[in-house]
């Protein structure tokens, strides 16, 4: 069987939905489909808490696009592309307003205008928020708005296993319908990958179970390069057992980070000195990379607190008072109560750094186009890059809107111009993939092989040990060797479930296969970058080296199946590389 659409979007999260609406608006005649492994409103965007950054408005004269751009550039440790950032800051504001017009319940000031809050690494208050459920409201607003475009076709709970490439052009995908186990070749003139991040490659993460980097692996296997994969963001404040995020908004509203002596230790790490009221770009409002690194140093000095689930520091919100916590941070209170059994109104919250966000991803230009004709990407899976070596909190939600819309428009234009091509070879490829899937299902059963979960856990532990907040050559080589070993073992892993109906074990197997590729790309890229920049800290190369590495890494798969890393210079428009200064 084969279906056909002008554009197939993989992923129904923020980026995918925004792209779909952009296409529907650009050219209502185009036939657009969203293929998503979960119902769109279950996508991980739903978990985003703190907010979305954009210069707030005409009467907030004390902020400017240039300042948002500068914060983003310095936050990225100069590894972003400044042309992309300049476009981003302007369009971010437009997108957040558009979302308001679609009904997003942004929190308001008393006079009815949009309210903004402070956020880490931002010099001005410019983070729009919907209490502390920003991603939830953003995603549901987009999903519900997309429902009004009844022509958008949805494949809900379909899992994409392969990109079909013929004659150097992406021509469709193969997907499995979870409910029935049916496989289908879906032919398309263009494909937009919006599959989100890959936090589940690590053991301790804020990311949902579905964030397994599928799209990165799909693109890599299809021959498209992945960019800046060594840059993995650790968020400084996750709950110890679960890794559930306590949003940066908690610190933006005035929360403090304390070590075991009750001391605001960030003052010892060149992040400024403590003030009662939060100071922008200072102390607890410093950037995430620096805060997570400070935690490691505190731990080495023996100044963290030993907790059942490892070392922690304390997030102190008590002085904010119940009223503020309930109005601005209700979800934080709910999460602390459910998952940690504490009340932040009166108790300290134990937190530790946790893998949160992937700066790297599928290499795209400013319009979401990849070097592979017909393939586009947007959202966390993509790397444009506005985030460089360290993303600023609250830049990701506006990013997925801005570049989701851009990718949608670019794909719409592309398919309107592109000549049709024979589908025969594409269908043949699709059939091969469908046969492979059936073999996987039948062949892996009862072979007495290892459990998937064991291989996954070993991969996660190897990544944390080898490619964590601090890395060096030895740790990375160890991780590379481990991933290679796990790939071999994976080939022999077994699954219990041979049913076609809603076979989540088969899906977990396909996800793990992709995650092993993504893990390999992360460590291989990290090994090659012999400097420290942003979230990539090499203890054997402690300084930033602009002469050699003011460049994006690009990792791609050679025809022989090995990985190769090249570099691409960053684009600098107005802000030459400088020192990152926080708190002074």
């Amino acid at each position: 069987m084969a279906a056909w659409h002008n554009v197939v979007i993989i992923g129904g999260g923020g980026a995918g939905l925004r792209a779909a609406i952009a296409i529907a608006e650009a050219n209502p005649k185009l036939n657009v489909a969203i293929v998503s492994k979960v119902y769109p409103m279950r996508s991980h965007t739903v978990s985003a808490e703190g907010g979305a950054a954009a210069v707030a408005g005409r009467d907030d004269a004390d902020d400017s696009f240039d300042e948002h751009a500068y914060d983003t550039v310095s936050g990225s440790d100069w590894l972003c592309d400044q042309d992309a950032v300049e476009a981003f800051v302007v369009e971010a504001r437009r997108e957040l307003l558009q979302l308001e017009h679609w009904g997003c319940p942004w929190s308001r000031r008393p006079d009815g205008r949009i309210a903004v809050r402070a956020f880490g690494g931002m010099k001005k208050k410019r983070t729009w928020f919907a209490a502390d459920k920003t991603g939830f409201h953003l995603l549901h607003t987009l999903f519900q708005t997309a429902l009004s475009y009844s022509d958008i076709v949805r494949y809900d709970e379909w899992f994409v296993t392969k990109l079909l490439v013929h004659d150097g052009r992406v021509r469709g995908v193969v997907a499995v319908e979870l409910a029935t186990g049916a496989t289908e070749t879906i032919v398309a003139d263009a494909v937009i990958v919006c599959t989100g991040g890959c936090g589940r490659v690590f053991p301790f993460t804020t990311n949902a179970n579905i964030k397994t980097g599928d799209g990165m692996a799909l693109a890599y296997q299809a021959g498209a390069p992945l960019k800046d994969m060594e840059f993995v963001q650790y968020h400084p404040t996750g709950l110890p057992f679960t890794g559930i995020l306590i949003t940066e908004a908690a610190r933006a509203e005035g929360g403090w980070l304390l070590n075991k002596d009750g001391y605001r230790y960030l003052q010892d790490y060149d992040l400024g000195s403590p003030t009662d009221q939060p100071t922008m770009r200072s102390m607890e409002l410093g950037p995430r990379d620096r805060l997570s690194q400070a935690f490691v140093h505190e731990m080495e000095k023996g100044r963290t607190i030993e907790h059942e689930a490892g070392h922690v520091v304390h997030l102190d919100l008590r002085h904010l008072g119940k009223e503020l916590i309930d109005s601005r941070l209700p979800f934080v209170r709910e999460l602390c109560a459910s998952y940690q059994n504490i009340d932040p109104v009166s108790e300290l919250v134990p937190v530790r750094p946790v893998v949160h966000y992937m700066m790297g991803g599928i290499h795209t230009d400013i319009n979401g186009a990849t070097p592979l004709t017909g393939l586009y990407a947007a959202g966390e899976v993509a790397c444009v890059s506005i985030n460089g070596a360290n993303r600023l909190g609250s830049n990701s939600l506006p990013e997925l809107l801005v570049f989701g819309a851009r990718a949608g428009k670019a794909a719409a234009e592309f398919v309107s111009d592109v000549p049709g091509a024979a589908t025969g070879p594409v269908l043949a490829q699709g059939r091969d993939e469908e046969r492979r899937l059936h073999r996987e299902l039948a062949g892996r059963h009862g072979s007495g092989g290892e459990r998937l979960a064991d291989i996954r856990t070993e991969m996660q532990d190897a990544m944390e040990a080898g490619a964590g907040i601090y890395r060096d050559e030895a740790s990375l080589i160890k991780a590379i060797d481990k991933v290679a070993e796990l790939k071999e073992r994976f080939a022999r892993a077994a699954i219990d479930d041979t049913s076609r109906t809603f076979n989540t074990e088969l899906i977990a197997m396909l996800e793990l296969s992709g995650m092993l590729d993504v893990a390999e790309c992360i460590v291989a890229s990290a090994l090659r970058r012999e400097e420290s920049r942003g979230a990539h800290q090499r203890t054997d190369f402690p300084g930033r080296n602009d002469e050699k590495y003011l460049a994006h890494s690009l990792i791609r798969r050679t025809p022989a199946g090995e990985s190769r890393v090249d570099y691409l210079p960053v684009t600098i428009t107005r802000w030459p590389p400088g020192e990152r200064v926080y708190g002074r």
Partner: protein
Amino acid sequence: MSETDDKHAVPDMPDTTGTITMEVARFRPDRESEPSWDSYDVPLRKEWAVLDGLNHIKDQLDGTLSYRWSCRMGICGSCGMTVNGEPKLTCSTFLTDYAPGPVRVEPLANFPVIRDLVVDIEDFMAKLPTVKPWLVSGDEEPAEDSEYRQTPAEMDDYRRYSMCINCMLCYSACPVYALDPDFIGPAAIALAQRYNLDSRDEGNEDRRDVLASAEGVWACTFVGECSVACPKDVDPAGAIQRYKLTAATQAVKDLLLPRGAR
């Protein structure tokens, strides 16, 4: 289970206070005519949700168990199941609350089962667009470069109804939906009200036919179980009651006033 298995399943979590038995409903409608029960012993840890127990089964004991989950923080709405007879989000329902056990886990009631703990929610997905859960803008749309003004008080009018995560616990709890599958149901009505009561929205009229129909609010006999089941305090029962009032007032107006003057 071997010791090494156990080590991988639960790294860094020493806090075991024994085990608890989970009785899990198993059903493959394509192969079996009715559900059966499987029983598994899982570690009883104070921080483990029912979902962690299921994940332990899936990863270490029986890979064939099917269920949905994703965020594990009570916001994506995937993991609704029936736990000891009540509809619950399994990621925010804790095993210790059921000690010493057993904990019985079944699929949500009132939905067809696809497999094991996975239910078919296509009925809701089809009904949702019929209530037009999107902002219908009127004449007073703001300029492209500015926002609608909306005070915090105006937002409070609909805020509660905007918190729905589409988890389906309310449908599972609803005795009306159990008997009348055409009933639009609690969450869809709450979402319609979320927009009806939004000061920016002008879509009341557009939603009226569906909401005020026999399958809309009037199907509800005000049992209120939906609001009890709702994990996000949406109060769909309140939304329904409030719309009944609106619809009744409108019906009286329709009788008294000639068309056009309404």
